[in-house]
């Protein structure tokens, strides 16, 4: 048996935020009298961390600890309109809507504090720990709890805010395709090392090295979750998955997880990730949203690694052992390519 090591490279960018715009998202923020806040959304957390990232965004904007904020997602009676969690729009659209809502709520909280401290709201800052004080004079201070309490019971102010984020609908020119597709791009480059068994056509992913540029990493652990899981899915799309194994023939379509093959826990390879953070001009705190793009560089990187290993181009996904074996037969055996 001969095992051929191969190395492949790919680089990609990814449009963040739903293509062409025209897709608003809204958020509502309000506080209890003790300065603890709720964020009401109709947005969806399908595992990407919507609840968690919007919670941090709200806390940062309000200037209070994250523990003082909870996010409720997806109740159409309480959560204002949102198009949904898809097209890498969640963090970008909903995050910006939450910033707008939290900014409005913060303003009321600061006015209430100003009234209590008998100063101008413009002179006040939050310390992120639950206090509001006069710029440069930390001693002249009031807790966010006291400020919100006063707003509620003394001043009759609602410490609340509404936010919407809309990227207006772009035109598309029918002749040239001129358009404003999105407002920012994430980036990635990946190098994958694989082994190819030239007798069975089996591919074993040995190691992945990657660099992802995701705008500001709003929560590094959530970014890590997306990149690690997304790269696994990229492997899967390249070497395993299809609903139609003999496409365009419809026969033998998988109906369970035994037939719909994906990499098992014994197939995964070490993945060394570097993250770059170039803030997006209009992303929430510069965040872009890595959820969709993270799988994309893996497909071509693995495909190119197969060529590098045995000299056959498989341009038809998934790259099953059968496709490699047929290509090797047509080529008359493996032709390993120079390594970089």
């Amino acid at each position: 048996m001969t095992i051929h090591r191969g190395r492949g490279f790919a680089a990609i960018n990814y449009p963040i935020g739903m293509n062409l715009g025209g897709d608003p998202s809204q958020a509502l923020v309000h506080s209890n009298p003790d300065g603890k806040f709720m964020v009401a959304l109709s947005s969806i957390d399908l595992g990407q961390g919507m609840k968690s990232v919007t919670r941090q965004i709200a806390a940062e904007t309000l200037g209070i600890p994250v523990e003082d904020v909870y996010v409720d997602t997806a109740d159409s009676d309480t959560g204002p309109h949102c198009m949904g969690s898809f097209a890498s729009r969640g963090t970008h659209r909903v995050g910006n809507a939450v910033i707008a809502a939290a900014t409005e709520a913060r303003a009321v909280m600061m006015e209430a504090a100003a009234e209590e401290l008998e100063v101008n709201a413009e002179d006040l800052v939050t310390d992120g720990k639950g206090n509001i004080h006069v710029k440069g004079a930390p001693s002249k201070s009031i807790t966010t709890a006291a400020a919100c309490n006063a707003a509620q019971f003394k001043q009759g102010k609602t410490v609340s805010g509404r936010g919407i984020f809309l990227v207006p609908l772009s035109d598309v020119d029918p002749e040239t395709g001129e358009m404003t597709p999105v407002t920012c791009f994430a980036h990635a480059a990946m190098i994958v090392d694989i082994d190819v068994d030239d007798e069975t056509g089996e591919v074993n992913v040995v190691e992945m090295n990657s660099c992802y540029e995701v705008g500001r990493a709003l929560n590094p652990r959530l970014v890590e979750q997306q990149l690690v899981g997304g790269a696994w899915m990229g492997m899967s799309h390249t070497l395993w998955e299809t609903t139609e194994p003999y496409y365009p023939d419809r026969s033998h379509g998988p109906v369970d997880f035994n037939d719909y093959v994906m990499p098992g826990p014994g197939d995964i390879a070490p993945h060394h990730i570097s993250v770059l953070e170039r803030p997006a001009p209009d992303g929430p705190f510069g965040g872009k949203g890595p959820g969709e793009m993270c799988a994309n560089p893996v497909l071509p990187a693995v495909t190119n690694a197969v060529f590098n290993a045995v000299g056959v181009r498989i341009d038809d996904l998934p790259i099953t052992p059968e496709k490699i074996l047929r290509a090797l037969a047509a080529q008359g055996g493996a032709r390993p390519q120079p390594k970089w």
Partner: protein
Amino acid sequence: MPVSVRTFQGAEEAERALAASRTARYFGGGTLVMRAVNAGDQAFDTIVRATDPRLRQIQLQGDSVVIGAGVTMAQIIASRDAAFLAPVAKVIGGPAIRTVATVGGNLFAASPYGDFAAALLALDAKVMPVGGAPVPIGDFLDARDREPRRLVLSVIVPRPRDSRAFRFVKVSRVKPKGVAVLSIAALLPTNGGRVSGARVAYGAMGGRPVRALAVEQALEGRTLDEQGIAPALSAATDGINPQTDALASEWYRRQVAPVHLKRLLLDQRR
């Protein structure tokens, strides 16, 4: 039609209940039957169970081990007497499947399932139907899809004299647990370094586990080295009709059967 469940103490009563109804299915471990029930399968409306302790026993009988049809893969792995079958049982499903998947159920599993039955075929096991006489497993499998199903009480498996003479490999697309692209079981008794009386069986290389008779003949009197096995490899798929399914095509199975057979015969582990 709602499903009714009938549980019997004795295997014989269960067998009678099955024989009496065309719409009854025997419930071994549930991996096949419960899946069908969950999917609303209209082919049967009665589940027959038996709590007969004989179905769960593993016992030595001369040179053989008698394994109850209701014995699970987990039991096989834990059993000293059936230790030579542990490597096979270990690659049947994941841990939560192995606690219920039974030896008897595997005899009826359609490709690509049925790796354990392939191993029993290579080991020249006999199938003991309830209230019947032992049937060579080959004949049992040949008749399986044609004749009305009979409840199996146990399988009688001759224990290989030399444990190294029995080899098994399951090839799958997913690690560590995946359904078979193919599996190969081989009993390779040697005499003075030469193979004598080999039995080789494939799983997932046709509708049911099949013997590779051409391979067996080509191995007779040969040594287990590159040169010795060459004729066997060229005969690897003679008389074999692999299926095409979601995991692999007939073409691929034909291509790689000799490769995995070679690796098994030369004991090349990857």
